[in-house]
């Protein structure tokens, strides 16, 4: 294997991979993307998952080890208000516990990314779970949007 991904990217990819698998197991026709603009290039329903922010904290006084907290943002672009509520509830159910943290690496040709399990990602706090109201929504993506943000830690 060539290059290993760093912690932040691994947290993001682990979360995306986990939720993509869970959504794929229970829903049909839901596309999962990792960038906001990608979501507008797809037919709804689309779920956009990305790591938005990292809070660096020290593990303890005098320690040189970081104990980071990561903010994950999930934008849901649904077909209807009912689907928006169902999808958001489903995702909330999936993130309430822990999921596998993987160290990812790709070969030199970047043709394959392989994850090796190395711990767990734990959801610490849900900071937002709300409808996004766009009053003059033109794009179908904007009509039934929902936002979930939460903090996670690796252990």
């Amino acid at each position, binding site marked *: 294997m060539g290059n290993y991904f760093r912690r932040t990217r691994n947290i993001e990819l682990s979360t995306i991979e986990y939720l993509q698998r869970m959504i794929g197991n229970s829903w049909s026709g839901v596309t999962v993307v990792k960038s*906001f*603009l990608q979501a*507008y290039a797809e037919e709804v329903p689309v779920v956009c998952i990305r790591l*938005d*922010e990292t*809070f660096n*904290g020290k593990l303890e006084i005098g320690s040189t080890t970081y104990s980071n*907290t990561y*903010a994950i*943002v999930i*934008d849901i672009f649904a077909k209807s208000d009912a689907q928006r509520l169902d999808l958001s509830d489903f995702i909330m159910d999936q993130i309430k516990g822990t999921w596998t943290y993987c160290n990812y690496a790709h070969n030199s040709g970047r043709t394959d990314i392989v994850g090796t399990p190395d711990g767990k990602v734990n959801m610490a*706090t849900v*900071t*937002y779970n709300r409808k*996004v*109201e*766009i009053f*003059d*929504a*033109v*794009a179908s*993506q*904007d009509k039934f*949007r929902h*936002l979930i*943000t939460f*903090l996670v830690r690796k252990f």
Partner: protein
Amino acid sequence: MITMTITPLDGKNKDCHIKNIKDEVDQVKSKLVSFGFEVASVMRNNIAALTKRKPSSGNLAKNITAERTITGMGVGNVSRLNSNAPYWKVVNDGGVIPPKTWGYFPGPSGPVTGHSGTERWTVTGDTKDWYIDPQKPMTPMYYIEHTVNWIHINFPTYFTNKKITQI
């Protein structure tokens, strides 16, 4: 209103304990007020840091204020924002593809190649200017969510220098 019964077990006067509690409550209230002002400052900094198209007028950030309310402290007066920076919500949530319009970019020769998505345009409506036909939705800034995340991370440690557990 919280009512409690205090039974001193250490031989100290009950009034002494009551005074200590009142002092601590006053300190916590004062600390909450300063926390509110700090949250507003964090939100303003988030807006400045997350603004992609520069130079920004700074109008949105300037209108993020902390104010005392009946229940405590409030950050971001919605009435004030609606009147002075009505785009506060769309900047936060993004998503809308801006309408086609006429306007100009900062440079004298129009938009600069390679600066896509980073130049701020000014709408004039004058057909002699550049015709601007946005193709992509606005990326949400989520400055409110960034600030709430900050609160969740920092609030627990904000009061650690107060000896609340000792009262």
